């Protein structure tokens, strides 16, 4: 028990031990601005052990922009840093910058009031020593200025420039005689130094507390005097350098008016600063500029004369700085004013032309780029835009200018404006007409639409539209295509609806095919592509009609009607069969199923027997139409059986329905049986066995000789007191010879 308690205590003790030991000076540290204060603890220095770690808390300053200056005797023996936050050395630790990193006896840190306390940390002690250190809290400006004043003062003194040339002091060298480049270099080098000083002084000013002026602080007063002196010298040197530059620039444009005029802006600015430059200096410059401006107007007129297009005129250099120079020198001459006025008007017109052209290009581009017929609102929209463009086209006044009307560019501008007026007028009319045609098309007024399109295409009664020929052609093509596709669609829709409506109709089928639905919704009469194109379009529509007439309608109808033929073999089955046959007469397709249906229901179409011994269903249908009495029936069989015989013959077995054959014992069930129209009678070589209940009502006709290379049609006619459809089965097979 005792040992356990001891262990706990040891652990507790160890847990409470820190790595860094705090040094706590007596008296306590003070943040007030005052001189250096030596650091002690009860009049003793702190003893620092080799390899030990320490820290000390410095209170924050009373104001921002302070420095903490530490002086100590053996800085090299210690590894130290200052930080705003410290937890016994645990990272992260943000080490503040020592502004005197190379100094081996002091450390300076910029501190402010953002932290409650600053930790000065001794991270390592080289060898056992006593800490002999003093500290100081001081404003940062003071600390800096005190350290830099001498340096600033020396810089000013060494870089002052003589002002005699600038001020044209008596005896001074005239400025035009100066070596501008050399002098500018000389001045500029000094200005750079002083500008640096001035900049530092300005920066230092931001460190001053707001109430410094009232405190009459000596250091602050010295600061103010020095700063004014430096700034005055810098301003002078800059003006002097500028003046030197103006004269130097002017001299560099001698013989080159456009170059001179190009700098007219800076000359104008220079000439206008009467307060900045000495009057003698300015007067020299103004005289110089005036003499040079005499060549300005001719320079520009030469450029105008060389212009051969109607695009806006861009004077080189720009007129505005030159005019400003004129004004800075006193007055703008009349010829320059006339020039400036013409150029302005010309450019107004040229830019309007350009704008109109751009907008027209955009408008016509919408037409040109449209690959298909646009919306109905397109034409009105374009029309509005065209009218707007037209309104923006100015009167061609530049070409009337008394001084410059003969210029080619002035004439070209007038010409372009005329063209634009024509083009916009044509385009406006084109859109108006187009709008009418489009509305006709939308209303399915095909004849009107086609008439207007024809007029648009030929120009009859509408104008030539020569300026918008391409757009007109485009519209014509759109309208033709729209009319064509519209007529086509209308035809299709009408026809499709007709087919849908009538596909199950079984009465008077031939009349269905004579319906107007099988004609085009409108018969096209015009094509800008000529007769062949017109024929092509008509043909395309006709082809669809023909496709529906000869393929789709009969196919759909036959399928639909066939579905209705079910077990009911009565009168309606006959009507349906006849309807199928009537549709079949119109059908030109090759669908085997359709052809088969038509064939099956047409009693006059022979039904092929292709394989021996296989029974084939055959419908016997009336060929008369007595719904309430006796009818004639017929069915035909085409024998197409394979045979290697030269003169093949077959037994043809016909399985009849009971009601067809049940009276065969009393009267013949058939009227006539023929093979290729030659009657077969139950005598001689032919045998026609009677259908009886015993043989399941199967009659045999034999021998039926098949034409090897031609058609062999077995045809059976019979009468029944009914109007209905009979289903029978037919089979053929090779007869055999018997020995016995």
């Amino acid at each position, binding site marked *: 028990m005792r040992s356990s308690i001891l262990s706990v205590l040891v652990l507790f003790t160890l847990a409470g031990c820190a790595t860094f030991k705090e040094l706590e000076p007596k008296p306590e540290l003070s943040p007030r601005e005052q001189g250096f204060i030596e650091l002690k603890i009860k009049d003793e220095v702190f003893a620092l052990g080799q390899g030990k770690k320490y820290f000390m808390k410095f209170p924050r300053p009373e104001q921002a922009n302070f420095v903490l200056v530490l002086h100590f005797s053996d800085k090299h023996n210690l590894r130290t840093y200052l930080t705003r936050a410290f937890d016994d050395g645990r990272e992260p630790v943000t080490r503040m910058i020592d502004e005197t990193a190379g100094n081996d006896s002091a450390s300076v840190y910029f501190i402010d009031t953002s932290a409650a306390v600053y930790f000065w940390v001794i991270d390592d002690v080289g060898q056992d020593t006593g800490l002999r250190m003093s500290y100081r809290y001081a404003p940062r400006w003071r600390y800096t200025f005190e350290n830099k004043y001498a340096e600033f003062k020396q810089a000013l003194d060494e870089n002052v420039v003589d002002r005699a040339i600038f001020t044209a002091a008596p005896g001074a060298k005239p400025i035009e005689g100066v070596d501008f480049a050399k002098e500018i270099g000389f001045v500029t080098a000094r200005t750079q130094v002083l500008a640096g000083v001035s900049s530092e002084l300005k920066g230092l000013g931001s460190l001053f507390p707001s109430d410094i002026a009232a405190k009459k602080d000596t250091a602050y007063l010295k600061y103010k005097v020095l700063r004014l002196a430096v700034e005055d010298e810098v301003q002078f040197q800059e003006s002097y350098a500028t003046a030197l530059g103006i004269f130097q620039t002017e001299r560099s444009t001698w013989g080159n008016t456009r170059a001179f005029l190009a700098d007219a802006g800076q000359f104008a600015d220079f000439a206008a600063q009467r307060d900045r430059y000495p009057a003698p200096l300015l007067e020299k410059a103004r005289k110089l500029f005036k003499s040079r401006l005499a060549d300005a107007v001719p320079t520009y007129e030469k450029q105008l004369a060389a212009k051969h297009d109607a695009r806006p005129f861009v004077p080189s250099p720009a007129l505005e700085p030159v005019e400003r120079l004129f004004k800075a020198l006193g007055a703008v001459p009349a010829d320059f004013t006339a020039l400036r006025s013409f150029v302005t008007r010309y450019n107004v017109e040229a830019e309007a032309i350009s704008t109109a052209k751009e907008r027209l290009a955009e408008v016509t581009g919408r037409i040109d780029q449209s690959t298909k017929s646009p919306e109905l609102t397109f034409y009105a929209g374009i029309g509005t835009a065209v009218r707007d463009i037209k309104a923006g086209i100015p009167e061609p006044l530049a070409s009337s200018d008394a001084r410059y009307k003969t210029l080619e560019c002035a004439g070209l501008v007038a010409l372009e404006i005329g063209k634009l007026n024509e083009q916009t007028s044509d385009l406006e009319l084109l859109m108006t007409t187009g709008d009418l045609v489009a509305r006709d098309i939308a209303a399915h007024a095909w004849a009107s639409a086609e008439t207007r399109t024809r007029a648009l295409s030929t120009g009859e009664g509408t104008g030539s539209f020569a300026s918008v020929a391409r757009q007109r052609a485009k519209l014509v093509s759109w309208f033709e295509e729209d009319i064509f596709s519209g007529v086509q669609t209308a035809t299709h829709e009408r026809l499709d609806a007709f087919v849908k409506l009538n596909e199950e109709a079984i009465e008077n089928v031939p009349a269905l095919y004579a319906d107007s639905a099988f004609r085009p919704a409108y018969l096209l009469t015009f094509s800008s592509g000529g007769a062949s194109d017109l024929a092509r379009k008509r043909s395309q529509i006709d082809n669809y009609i023909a496709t529906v007439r000869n393929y789709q309608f009969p196919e759909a109808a036959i399928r639909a009607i066939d579905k209705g033929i079910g077990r009911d073999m009565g009168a309606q089955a006959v009507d349906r069969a006849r309807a199928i046959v009537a549709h079949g007469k119109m059908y030109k397709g090759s669908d085997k199923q359709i052809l088969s249906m038509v064939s099956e229901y047409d009693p006059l179409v022979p039904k092929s027997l292709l394989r*021996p011994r296989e029974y084939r269903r055959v419908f016997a249908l009336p060929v008369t139409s007595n719904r309430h009495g006796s009818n004639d029936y017929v069915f035909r069989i085409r024998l197409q*059986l394979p045979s290697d015989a*030269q003169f*093949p*013959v077959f037994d043809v077995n016909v399985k009849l329905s009971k009601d067809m054959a049940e009276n065969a014992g009393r009267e013949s069930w058939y009227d006539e049986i023929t093979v290729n129209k030659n009657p077969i009678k139950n005598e001689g070589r032919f045998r026609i066995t009677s259908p009886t209940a015993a043989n399941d009502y199967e009659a045999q006709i034999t*021998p039926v000789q*098949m034409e090897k290379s031609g058609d062999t049609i077995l045809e059976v006619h019979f009468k029944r007191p009914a109007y209905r459809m009979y289903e029978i089965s037919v089979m053929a097979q090779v007869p*055999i*010879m018997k*020995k016995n």
Partner: protein
Amino acid sequence: MKNKKLLPLWIALAVVVVAGVLYFLLHRPDLSGRIVLPYIAHQKPSIDPHLPGPTALSDKLDEVEFDGLFNLSANPSGIVYQDGLGELVGVDENNVVTVRLVQNRRWSDTYKVTQKDDAYNVSKTSEHPFTAEDLRFTIRRILALGSLSPDYILITQAMEDPGFEGPDDQGSIRFHFRQNRIWKEADIKEMLSFKILPANSPMNALNYTVGTAPYMALPPIEGVSNYIRRPDGKAVMPLVILSPFIDNSTYTTELRNGVINVLLETPFGAVSPVLGNREKFFVKSNVSTTFFAILFNTQKLSRDQRVELRKLLSNKAIEDRFFKIGTAQQRHVVDYKGNQDNYQDYLNYSIFPSSSYYIEEKIVEPVRESVTANLSLLPDTVRIKACLNFGSREEYGDLVEILNDPTVTQGRIKAIAVGNEDIQHGAYDAVLVAFNGYRSNFLFDMYDVFLRQPDFQIQKINLETAMDAKGMQNILPTSLHSDGNFFRLDASAEGPEKADIDLLLQYVYGFMSTRQIGDKQEYARRVDQLEHSLCLGSWLFSVPSLAYFSTQFDSSSIDLYGVASQLSTIKKWQEQPDR
């Protein structure tokens, strides 16, 4: 006194009469248990079940000796097919016909027969069972015979590749019948009714004697076998005896006298007045199997002459004389339909007899001319020869006499009975021929008319064929050479009629070799028309087929129908119970 003197004479006479009666009664043949059929002694039956025989009896004996897979028979309701060496299992949807072969059926050479007096002893020797190999051999033989054999037509129309698969463990074999028809049971059995020979038979023999039928041949005596009921057979009558005679003139007398008890063909095909006793004889009629024709020698007579000769030879007039119509001696006839004295029905106007399918069904409709002959075109005397030594002697004799009658042939004909040599050498303007055993059905034998060697002593058909480049069998012109047919036609010789002769040869072959009914019919028409144009003969008339039976037999056990063989039911024949 006078009577007393004559008494010994009367006694002697009475003794002679009594002795004669006793002799007759004692020596009268006892035909109990025997079926006795007559034949012409020098026309010995030779039996080949796959070829038309030289005599009518030869073909009929096929039924006695041989079995097919199925045998044609008859009952009171008509024709029936009975299982022979096969039993029909069935036919599937692909027309594969399955037949189970009978087991334990032996060939007749399994047995040995010895005779002592009238007693026969049958004993087994080496076992010779019927197997599928026998059937395979038979089919191979029929195919080799080609169009010479009616069976060839049957099996090739039934099967594209005649033959069979098997037998399997059950002894069943499968035939692949053609797909061109629905094969009913009767059709299948008809197609498979060809007679089967043992596989160890020669391919070509004059006489085949080993069979499986209820009767088996006894050892031949002078080249002719009688038949005895097999120990394992189902025949009722123990013996079938062939009885030789010089000619047919005494057949009716022999039947009346009880020397024979079956007469399959009467002279003239007529009702016999001597056999009119219904208590002793009953009669059964069949469709005609014999017709008479005068065939023209094309080397002696031009086509114009042949035309006029045909006009001269009125078959009606000849037939009237033949049957002595309108006289007290009129030969009465009755046909299988019951018609009596319908002589008109037997007149022929084509190579196809009027009884045949082709005429009856009007496949062929021959021209019937009744115009007067232009005698100026004919030779002064047209010599028509007949050989009376090979059957139908009675008929030939009468016909020779009739033809020589100026009232019949206007004195332009000289008919002569000659020896076989004259016929062989073509020493005639025309020759009188009786065609026996013709079939009135599809399988009318045209080779027998056109390609038969002109030699009554033998039955030889001069058919020569070869395969062409397309693999088709064609008839060769050598089949028709002047020494090889009654008409002396020669397809190899140049002449104005060569084209027609060539054509005729093709048509005849086409008719005989086709298995297609349509082709058969068309070729029949063409042969008829071309023959009419070539005018190769006068086809005279057929004679009825009338069979007489002794009432020794129970008439109800003997069923004869239409064209069915008369002996196809012989195993069922039985004697009257009270006999």
